[in-house]
């Protein structure tokens, strides 16, 4: 798959588009060579830091000067030299001036515009940079909008692929997996009915890849059934997908499909990969195909797909099957959903374990990107406001210039210039500026979108689909042209509503500049300030919210805490006692490691994105399982885990080593569980039952609440069981060091916020390898990173909006500055007169500030009003603060006023330095 389109660089693609601006003959003859040239320049530029940005700028300048020249020159009929026999044509004559004037008006207007832009480099630069900021930010965000929300998924007919969610009717957000027997029933009942064509299931698994003697835990591997790839409709890039034959008993465990990333990384893109054998979990497996990375199957990052080899009776799969449904073309999701819900209701009637559960469907796309959509669209809206401010700045700048050119325009009109001609000239000038801004903006977007991808890693789905390609560049071009047309209209309209005669006489008649809205530029300033204040309000609320989230007590202490996830290979560890013994061994080794003060293991960690947990239904004595809606989080833990975590035991005792397989079944519950189940009563000694009432547990202790999913979550009921009585092979081992200096002795020291957590994590990994060197560690982590990760999304959007607000404030400030500076310059005589009759410099500063602030205050008031309205849409993202938080609003007022004062202060000071004598004489 070597598509040349994907291997071309952004610069190359950009300039192959620019080529279309050259005359056709030049483009046809030399276009290819120009691109070759650019490619070579780019190779040189790669060596220097920012070399490519610099190159892009030089190339733009080159194109801007070459294109008008290319049009200006017309071949002379006499000397169209066809070949080298033009030897007779010694010293040919130069073109005379007259010949060059035979050109259409468009290139001429363009030439005039280019000249004007070059003669006024300061104006051109400010205008282009302002727009570049707006267009660059918008293009970068649009690359995310397009990549995440709009780009085709690579899956056949994604509108008719649905994700099955099995959940309690009242709690749709908390889906459980299906049981194998359940799936078999479901297939019989619904396939071919209600538009459901086929169901396919998969299970996440963890396998160990053995190559070069080094075990490597593959992050995500999937056990899929035979219909999986056909249902998703994805073609492999090499070999074949898995099919029904592969799940037959004699083929199971002998074949696998691998991901493009694994193929490229581990196997060096070996074209002969199909047919090679891998060692997965110490079993030789033949690779039959390679799947593309840019297709979610069913999510990004899966590295191996293997055929399922489960039996309906396989207890270890209970609750772990994920199911996708392929609907018939034209089928209705709601109808199919109802058929499945009915089937679930029948199942519940037959089996009390599933009572109260139902099934609902979401489209595949929705489940992949659903939660990201509102935030991305909000970001796109916010960044659109920045463009609005940038356009207002442009309009204001062009208006100011049109005022300066008032006499020129009036003269040209008087000489009979047609309205159309003048308008065209003005529009071409603004289009040239916006194109320049657009091109710079694209260069900027190239860097911004990389930064965005870096910041959003792990927070947004489909980031692998975010890139600057043709549709995104098309958007940038469209926005540039649109912006150019819109703000170009302002001076064009203005030019035709002016008083001709007055302008020609050079009369600057008394314009009512001092009242807002009388001058269109003042209106633009009000609009800019309003919009900027709306953004600042949003940013202030999100940042306040973030600070609030950080101050929430998670219920444990993350300093010095680190750990490693270990998913035992079930071929090597075949029974509970082997699994339990392994973790006892690892923890023993850890406890004797110098520097480690506590260690333990759990089936899941708070705030760990890799922990998949589901609530378990439970009953109190005397309750019927079918009537009960009680459920609680559950974890199986080893002795020492709660102590290592730093969660305080409030009553009774913790899980101890004396809780063994042959002793009484016990549980430690959290405060919320105690309150929900027994209210004010002492829960110690009480009992509850799980597994449909079949397993009774006695409460021996109460532990403090822990926020499992981050600070924004409400605390939930939870209980902890001894690992010796409920053995899991997939555990996370954690250890705490009290000695933060250990961190500084290691590479940890370079990391901000190093607190020994990574050191502790490394210690866990070492102890695990010492216990069994064939068992890989899945991954290690410092707890402080998990804690940061839990608010990462809030931080990302908070920072994004803060950046937008800063840019908006900057641009609005530039707008205020431009208008005030222009007005101060216009009013030199007035200020000179005032100073001549006794006004001091500070009086003048005061006067300018007051006039300018009147406009800004109007914008501020409007902005806060609109900002409060807009803040309502932020409410779903706010946990700790209200949408009308007063301290946030106070910050908005102070910040916005400071920006407005700052922007007016520079021209105000220059007004106070006007020399009254010379200004009254009319010299400036």
């Amino acid at each position, binding site marked *: 798959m070597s598509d040349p389109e994907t291997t071309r660089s952004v610069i190359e693609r950009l*300039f192959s588009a620019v080529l279309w601006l*050259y005359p056709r*003959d*030049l483009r046809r*003859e*030399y276009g*290819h*060579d*120009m691109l*070759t*040239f*650019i490619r*070579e*320049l780019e190779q040189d530029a790669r060596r220097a830091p920012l070399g490519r940005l610099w190159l892009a700028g*030089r*190339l733009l*300048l*080159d*194109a801007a*000067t*070459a*294109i008008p*020249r*290319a049009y200006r*020159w017309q*071949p*002379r009929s006499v*000397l*169209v*030299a066809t*070949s*080298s026999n*033009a*030897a*007779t*044509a*010694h*010293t*040919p004559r*130069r073109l005379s001036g007259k010949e060059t004037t035979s050109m259409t008006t468009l290139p001429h207007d363009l030439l005039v515009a280019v000249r004007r832009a070059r003669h006024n480099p300061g104006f051109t630069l400010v205008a282009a940079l302002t727009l570049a900021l707006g267009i660059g930010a918008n293009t970068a965000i649009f690359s995310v909008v397009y990549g995440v929300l709009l780009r085709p998924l690579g899956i056949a007919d994604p509108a008719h692929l649905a994700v099955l969610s099995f959940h309690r009717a009242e709690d749709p957000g908390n889906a459980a997996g299906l049981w194998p027997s359940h799936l078999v029933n479901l297939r019989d009942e619904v396939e071919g009915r209600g538009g459901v064509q086929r169901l396919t299931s998969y299970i996440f698994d963890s396998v160990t890849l053995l190559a070069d003697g080094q075990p490597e835990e593959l992050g995500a591997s999937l056990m899929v059934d035979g219909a999986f790839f056909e249902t998703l409709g994805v073609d492999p890039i090499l070999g074949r997908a898995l099919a029904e034959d592969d799940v037959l008993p004699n083929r199971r465990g002998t074949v696998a499909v691998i991901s493009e990333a694994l193929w490229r990384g581990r196997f060096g893109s070996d074209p002969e990969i199909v047919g090679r054998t891998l060692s997965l979990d110490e079993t030789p497996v033949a690779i039959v195909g390679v799947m593309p990375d840019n297709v979610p199957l069913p999510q990004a990052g899966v590295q191996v797909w293997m055929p399922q080899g489960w039996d309906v009776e396989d207890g270890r799969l209970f609750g772990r099957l994920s199911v996708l449904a392929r609907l018939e073309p034209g089928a209705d999701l709601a109808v199919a959903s109802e058929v499945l819900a009915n089937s679930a209701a029948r199942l519940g009637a037959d089996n009390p374990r599933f009572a109260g559960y139902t099934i609902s469907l979401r489209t595949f796309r929705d489940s992949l990107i659903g939660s990201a959509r509102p935030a991305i669209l909000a970001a796109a809206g916010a960044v659109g406001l920045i463009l609005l401010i940038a356009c207002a700045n442009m309009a204001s700048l062009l208006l100011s210039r049109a005022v300066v050119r008032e006499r020129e325009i009036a003269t040209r009109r008087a000489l009979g210039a047609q309205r159309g001609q003048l308008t065209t000239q003005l529009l071409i000038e603004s289009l040239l500026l916006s194109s320049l801004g657009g091109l710079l903006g694209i260069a900027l977007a190239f860097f911004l979108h990389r930064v965005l991808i870096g910041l959003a890693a792990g927070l947004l789905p489909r980031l692998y689909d975010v890139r600057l390609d043709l549709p995104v560049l098309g958007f940038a071009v469209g926005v540039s042209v649109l912006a150019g047309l819109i703000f170009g209209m302002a001076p064009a309209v203005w030019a035709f509503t002016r008083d001709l005669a007055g302008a020609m006489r050079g009369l600057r008649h008394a314009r009512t500049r001092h009242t807002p809205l009388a001058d269109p530029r003042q209106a633009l300033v009000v609009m800019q300030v309003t919009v900027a204040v709306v953004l600042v309000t949003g940013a202030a609320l999100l940042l306040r919210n973030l600070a609030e989230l950080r101050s929430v007590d998670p219920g444990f202490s993350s300093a010095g805490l680190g750990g490693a996830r270990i998913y035992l290979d079930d071929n090597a560890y075949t029974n509970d006692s082997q699994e339990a013994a392994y973790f006892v061994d690892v923890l023993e080794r850890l406890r004797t490691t110098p520097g480690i003060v506590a260690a333990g293991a759990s089936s899941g960690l708070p705030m760990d994105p890799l922990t998949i947990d589901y609530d378990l239904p439970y009953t109190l004595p005397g309750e019927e399982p079918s009537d009960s809606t009680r459920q609680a989080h559950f974890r199986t833990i080893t002795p020492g885990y709660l102590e290592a975590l730093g969660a305080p035991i409030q009553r009774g005792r913790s899980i101890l080593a004396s809780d063994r397989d042959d002793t009484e079944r016990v549980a430690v519950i959290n405060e919320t569980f105690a309150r929900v189940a027994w209210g004010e009563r002492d829960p110690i000694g009480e009992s509850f039952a799980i597994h449909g009432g079949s397993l009774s547990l006695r409460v021996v202790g109460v532990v403090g609440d822990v926020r499992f999913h981050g600070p924004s979550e409400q605390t939930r009921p939870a209980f902890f069981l001894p690992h010796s009585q409920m053995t899991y092979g997939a555990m996370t081992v954690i250890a705490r060091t009290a000695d933060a200096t250990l961190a500084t002795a290691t590479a940890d020291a370079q990391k901000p916020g190093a607190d020994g957590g990574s050191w502790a994590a490394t210690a866990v990994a070492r102890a695990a390898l010492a216990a069994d060197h064939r068992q890989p560690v899945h991954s290690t982590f410092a707890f402080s990173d998990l804690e940061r990760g839990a608010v990462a999304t809030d931080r990302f959007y908070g920072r994004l909006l803060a950046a937008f607000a800063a840019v908006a404030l900057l641009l609005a400030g530039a707008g205020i500055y431009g208008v005030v500076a222009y007005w101060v310059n216009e009013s030199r005589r007035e200020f000179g007169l005032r100073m001549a009759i006794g006004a001091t410099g500070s009086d003048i500063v005061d006067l300018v500030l007051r006039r300018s602030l009147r406009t800004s205050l109007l914008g501020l008031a409007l902005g806060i009003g609109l900002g409060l309205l807009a803040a309502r849409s932020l409410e779903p993202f706010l946990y700790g603060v209200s949408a009308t938080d007063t301290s946030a609003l106070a910050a908005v007022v102070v910040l916005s006023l400071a920006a407005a004062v700052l922007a007016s202060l520079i021209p105000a000071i220059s007004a106070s330095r006007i020399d009254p004598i010379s200004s009254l004489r009319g010299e400036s």
Partner: protein
Amino acid sequence: MTTHSPLKPVEFHLLLALVDGPLHGYALAGRMREESDEQVKMMPGNLYTVIRRLDREGWVTEADARTPGDDQRRRYFALTHAGRHLLADEGRRMARMANTVRRRLLDTGVNDGEITS
């Protein structure tokens, strides 16, 4: 005697760069830059606009100088006879101008060393 140059500096350097043999665009730009003491730095747009003009005027033509490993669509450019003559004329003209300058300055009392160093 021609006092007005028929060639712009960029055109002059382009022709000069091709004296030793055909070059493709990137190499041509590099040679021009070297020979002009970094004064003439051509980027693709302007380079090919100038090449087209010189080609149409009959001073430069396309040459087949591709090496086997080269991109087969890449063009090489060479001087035509007319181009070579033009460059020679331009060289003579510049020499004459240099002499004139030297003579006039010597008349005013500025010695040769000050001019050349």
